[in-house]
């Protein structure tokens, strides 16, 4: 994107940068712990980790305001955490505990914390784009000033709901920012092999009258500036935005996938662009002292340890909760 005087004012200040580093470190250590706990058989089912993609979540989380809403995918631990959901309740949900953020009914692919504006992790590819548009429609009609941020992967750009949602959001000028986290792989398949254009999201933007925006998704400062511009513009009535953040999934698609289909050279290159050490070095170069960074690292590690221990100690869901919360009366009765 061309840099303008206006966009320069949207650059992160040092306080924001330090906050983003803390978010990224918490996200990184949380995901690593989840990986370990899965191997130990304590986290069950499946997990889709965002290791390597933390800068996208941190940049947008730092740019959002308290009432804003986030919709994300089954690769949603990080976005839910960074929106402010309590880490211990997230960890407990992954372990299937009663104290989980969804009482154990959601699991890894369905983390939701409405009280913090984390409106859900959606496990069917593409489904949440029209839902996010609908939340933005309500914000527009009610005049709440909210912006909705909707994260999705590169694979989503080839499903119909992506196109239906973008068109509707554009026609209705909805305050929603669609964020494609392009990690180069649609599950196990390189996205380029199955997509007609080079940039799967941003190259489609002109079809909906939107500007195609590509940003380095491993650079939280660039993500933040792009997010601020898109979110502020959308909040001011400028309609939807579509941002494509180029990043890399350091692990496989899910727990079942070692990711061996990826060329070694590619993996090496992207691990060399790991957002955590890169950003830590930048902050040090910009004058953040080592003690501050080390303290953040230690606090993040301690938070993950605390969340792990509290989730391990938490009770299993009570049998009485099985047939609750199908309906708003709290129950599940379908007959008299």
């Amino acid at each position, binding site marked *: 994107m061309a840099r303008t005087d206006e966009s320069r004012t949207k650059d992160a200040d040092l306080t924001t940068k330090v906050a983003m580093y803390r978010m990224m470190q918490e996200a990184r250590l949380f995901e690593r712990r989840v990986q370990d706990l899965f191997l130990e058989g304590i986290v069950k089912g499946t997990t889709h980790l965002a290791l390597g993609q933390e800068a996208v979540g941190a940049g947008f989380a730092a740019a959002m305001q308290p009432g804003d*809403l986030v*919709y994300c995918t089954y690769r949603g631990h990080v976005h839910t955490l960074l929106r402010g959901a309590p880490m211990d309740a997230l960890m407990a949900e992954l372990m299937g505990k009663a104290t989980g953020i*969804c*009482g*154990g*009914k*959601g699991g890894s692919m*369905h983390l*939701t*914390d*409405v*009280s913090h504006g984390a*409106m*859900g992790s*959606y496990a*069917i590819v*593409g*489904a*949440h*784009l*029209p*839902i*996010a*548009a*609908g*939340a*933005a*429609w*309500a*914000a527009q*009609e*009610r005049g*709440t000033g*909210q912006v*909705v941020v909707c994260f999705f992967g590169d694979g989503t750009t080839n499903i*119909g*709901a992506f196109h*239906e*949602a973008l*068109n*509707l959001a554009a*026609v209705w000028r909805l305050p929603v920012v669609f964020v494609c986290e392009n990690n180069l792989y649609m599950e196990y398949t390189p996205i380029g092999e199955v997509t007609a254009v080079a940039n799967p999201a941003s190259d489609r933007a002109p079809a909906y009258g939107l500007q195609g925006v590509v940003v380095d998704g491993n650079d939280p400062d660039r993500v933040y500036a792009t997010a601020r511009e898109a979110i502020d513009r959308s909040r001011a009535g400028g309609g939807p935005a579509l941002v494509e953040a180029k990043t890399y999934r350091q692990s496989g698609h899910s727990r079942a996938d070692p990711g061996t289909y990826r060329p070694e050279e590619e993996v090496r290159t992207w691990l060399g662009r790991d957002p955590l050490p890169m950003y830590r070095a930048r902050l040090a170069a910009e004058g953040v002292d080592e003690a501050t960074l080390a303290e953040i690292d230690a606090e993040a590690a301690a938070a993950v340890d605390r969340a792990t221990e509290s989730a391990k100690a938490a009770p299993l869901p009570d049998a009485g*909760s099985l047939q*609750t*919360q*199908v*309906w*708003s009366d*709290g129950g*599940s*009765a*379908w*007959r*008299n």
Partner: protein
Amino acid sequence: MAELTYREAVARGIAQEMARDPSVYFIGEDVAAAGGVFKTTVGLLDRFGPARVRDTPISEQAIVGAIMGAAMNGLRPIAEIMFSDFFAVCWDLIANQIAKTRYMTDGQVALPLVIRTANGGGVRFGAQHSQSVEGWAMAVPGLKVVVPSTPADAVGLIAAAIRDPDPVIVIEPKALYPTKADVPDGEIVDRLGSARVVREGGDATIVALGAMVPTAVEAADRLEAEGVSAEVIDVRSLVPLDTAAILDSVSRTGRLVTVEESPRLCGWGAEVASIVADERFFDLDGPIVRVTTPHIPLPAADALEDLAIPSADAVVAGARRALG
């Protein structure tokens, strides 16, 4: 009291609730300026304006997704899916998202929304615009499903659906749109989960839904001429299901016939038959008989479609079997 067509009653029910609650919005294909392809929403745009009554692109996933998101953020939206057959192109949003989100979030999310749709055959549209899909909706935990069979019920059940805090699918039998009946003046708000005895009788219970209700009543009239007194129950609501009304009737009559427009397998009548067999087996004096459309896609030709959809003759024959 005014005589209304079913299609006029649909608009009245929506208007009643939009006038009462400013958070009620209504979207769909051709619903605003055109007043709906079935003319079920005539006048709503003029009365409530283009923000609250809004035409959409042909994007069923966007339509259903949009009302879900809007319901998560403070609106009580209604969507029209023009033909219920089109549920198939937005079924992910209905069955995977709307139906499951409250449970998956352990009650964090309420979805006070309504999806209205024109359902069923009798209008010679062929297999992709004539299906009876109430069974699809009924089979998914988390959806309430109602099927009004009269203009007054259309007003009252639509109103109840809009006021309900959970997602409700309102299935409108398109064959009934031109039918007329008296509708009381003033506000009408019905109750989900309540069946109605539309004709009393002591020899057999005929349970019907939607467009099959008038067919069942016609059959009961013919049976009366044969000396058989048949009770006809309009199910009205599949979820929640008023099993008490059905079980009470079967306890008195000892005979049960279900009349379903949907194809044979897994129709709502199979669930009713199962419940009755389980809970009133010793009150039954004959076989439970299901009268359904054969297990085929519906044909377009009038001669064939009329053979497929249960007729009063078919219901009479079914009742005779039940009576032994």
